[in-house]
């Protein structure tokens, strides 16, 4: 009320009526009964963007995350903040992942990556195994004998896993790409351009070779599901920059991709 001009303050009842109508309309959000808090839907998206940005650098505990964006959500009830996080988790824009150390749960902008958890224990185990190998070498055991036994025991100790990563179907790859666009730029769903060089890097695990990435991009564009933006001056790029873009067989080089909205 304090931020309103004088004429507004004297019309408090009418204002509340208008606000309630706007809430009903969906143009304004609200929470609470005795002490109602109002905000614009736009603010929710801004808050969501800030959350994802904060988590983009590294996973955070809930407490740390809250202290990071408390300025954006001044006055927001705790229940509302939790609701926002739940929604983002449901939309797979943020994820709950176990902490690498300890038993805590962190929030992250990326799903749990096995390599981050396995790295340290496997390095430690590898170090111990190498020490053991040196000791047995002195006793006449060759390195080949030693590591053959180690591998055999390893395969027995862990559940069977296929040696090859299951190849996702074409439809899965396309969906991975489209989801990747939204994760990389939270405005992508609204038509914002996503740089193809960054997307290629972000999706490297799913598209380790250049041509598989390019094929998916061009197919989606041919089907009209995304639109591509060309680079008309490839001469200004060095080789590495050119190779990070997407090329078709007509000599076109594409720098960005967007959804048509």
């Amino acid at each position, binding site marked *: 009320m304090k931020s309103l001009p004088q004429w507004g303050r004297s019309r408090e009842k009418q204002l509340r009526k208008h606000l309630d109508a706007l809430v009903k309309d969906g143009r304004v959000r609200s929470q609470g009964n005795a002490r109602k808090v109002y905000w614009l839907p736009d603010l929710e998206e801004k808050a969501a963007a800030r959350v994802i940005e904060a988590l983009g650098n590294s996973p955070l505990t809930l407490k740390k995350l809250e202290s990071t964006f408390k300025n954006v959500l001044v006055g927001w009830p705790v229940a509302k903040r939790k609701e926002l996080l739940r929604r983002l988790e449901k939309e797979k824009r943020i994820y709950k992942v176990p902490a690498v150390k300890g038993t805590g749960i962190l929030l992250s902008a990326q799903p749990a990556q096995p390599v981050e958890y396995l790295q340290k224990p496997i390095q430690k185990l590898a170090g111990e195994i190498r020490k053991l190998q040196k000791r047995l070498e002195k006793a006449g055991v060759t390195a080949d004998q030693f590591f053959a036994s180690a591998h055999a025991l390893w395969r027995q100790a862990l559940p069977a896993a296929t040696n090859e990563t299951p190849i996702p179907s074409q439809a899965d790859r396309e969906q991975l790409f489209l989801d990747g666009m939204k994760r990389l730029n939270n*405005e992508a769903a609204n*038509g*914002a*351009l996503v*740089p193809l*060089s960054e997307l290629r890097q972000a999706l490297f695990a799913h598209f380790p070779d250049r041509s598989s990435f390019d094929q998916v991009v*061009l197919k989606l*564009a*041919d*089907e*009209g599901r995304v*639109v*591509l*933006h*060309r*680079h*008309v*001056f490839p*001469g*200004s790029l060095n080789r590495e920059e050119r190779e990070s873009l997407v090329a*078709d067989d*007509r000599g*076109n080089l594409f*720098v*960005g991709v*967007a959804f*048509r*909205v």
Partner: protein
Amino acid sequence: MQSFDILTNPFRNSIVTNPWQPPETDITTIHQSAFARCCQAIADVRQNHSTASVLIHGEAGSGKTHLLARFRSYIAREAQADGPGGLQEAVFIAVRMQTGQQMIWRHLRLQLANDLLRGESECQLERLLLHRLSAAGVVTGDIHSWLAEKRRENNNEPLTELEKLLDQLSRFSNGQLGFGYDLFTILGHLLLDRHRYAAAAWLRGDSLPESVQKQLFDSDRQDDENDLDPEERARRVVLALTNLATADMPLVFCFDQLEALQVDPRDIVGLFAFGQMATELHAGTKNVLIISCIQSMFLETLKNSMSEANYARLHSFDITTLNPLDWKEATLLIEARLKSVPVIAARRSLEPNQLWPLSENDVRKAFAHNACTARHLLNHCANLFETLRTGEVKSPPLSNQLGQFLETTWEERKQQAQAASAPRSTNNTEDIIIQGLSLLTNLLSKNWQRVDQRPRDIDLLFESAAGTIGISLCNSTHGYSLCKKLERLQAQVRGRKLSQLILLRDSRLPLGSGALKTREMREQIIKQGARWVEPTEEALSALDALRQLLSDAKSGALANGGDTVTAQTLEEWLVANLGEELHRTLEEFLPGSAAPAAKDEDTLRILRLLQNNHIISIEHTAVLLGKDVLEIEACARKQTDRIGVLGQPPAVLFHLVGEESAA
């Protein structure tokens, strides 16, 4: 149906090249969401009394300028519907960033002044001031009658009402608005239609002789124009004028051709300076909408050229994407163009093919991956229409087409630059020289590097193994200021930090016969080792044409039909085909820039190309020089001491360097 050959081609000659040009054919559903965002942004500015910014990007030829023209027309239409000074009024300023980093504020001041003074009966500045005077309650009753009365009085007194307004504005802003006495006086003159030409020149930032200053300010004071850094002076004037905007009459800045701020693709200095300028404009004003336009491929470069905070200020409201057209949008555009020819419109209704007389299959050939820019589509359809008219498929050899196009365009631009060179604006001349010389040096002379850190009064600084050359622009028409500048420059010469100091003055601004002291100082400084250079009008016009053409190419605005001509292609052509006047100009400033002498024109042009490229395909050389491949080979083989030829059949030419040069 009568034959097509008597009909105008509905797909030609209606590309929007600047936002002040009303779009002839405008399909409102194309780029509708981007347009809506601009409208929302200005509504946001009006509602919140704040400054907002939108960054618009799209491929070259996607319709960025067309969108700005649509937005400007929308603002004007809404204003008309609401009546003069009505709620939907706004002031529109279009700025092409064809300038260098050290001239950004002066360039902005020039463009702001030009657009504020635009308008036949009532210019934007007048509308803005009248609105302000009325809204502040300083003038009551009919504002236009008040103005007519004041103009009839025709005295030279300061306008007290304006003084009251500016005093009021200054008090509300704790004196931060920067409305100095000079600006107040000039605004009074312009509003009352007094000394209009001189006042407009002052507003643009031109240097004015003492006699004109006396007329404007009625004072014999002797102020040095350069007491305050010219960029700082320009910044204050821009911010002061911008702060005249209100929520009811906001100001819209449209910045286009940001890519032109780069001298070469790795240069970020100009973009960094733009980011700082935009941030100051954002932070130091209210009721302003800042719209910036760039090509999509340039987004990352722009982002990486400035701080995160400055980049965020460029799109505080939104970043909006202009996508190439899809098939549905393309058909709407084609249909609209076809409807503009009455004969075709009448016949179309009888045809089942909605694109008649064009065939859908033919039109679809313009598409790649379901998308096509508007420019490419219109050119493609224009060619299809020509085929219907003449019965011949239009496809001249690529080499002739590009070479001829660039030659014709270059000549046209030079003529336009020459025609636009009067009346002269010293601010504009400095822009031409600083940006033009930087670009020319980058084009023709890789030996000389521009240095950004410069001493005071040195406008351009170049260094090479041969030394350092400083260029100072001495175009001031204010005798006292010019004298003071020459005095300071004498210290530069005595200090011997520069290998050479060049004093450059526009030959169209000769020193007056009464400027005895200035002439004396000039002779002294020349005796001390400086050089006085006066580029000809032809050289300045050529420099202006060069910078405009390169700026257009960098921003994707230079197109040969539907094909964007890249900056690289244009640079290569210019290297091979620039006239002697610019080579001489550069050699005058930076000795050693010229290619070695050659007996014939073609050899000289090849050598110039190889100076920059070292190795180049024969075919590409032929395209750039507009010659046959065999001619180029024959020419190159005559110069075996300087040009190497490789391949069977010859595929490339390379620059042969002598043993001494190689060492």
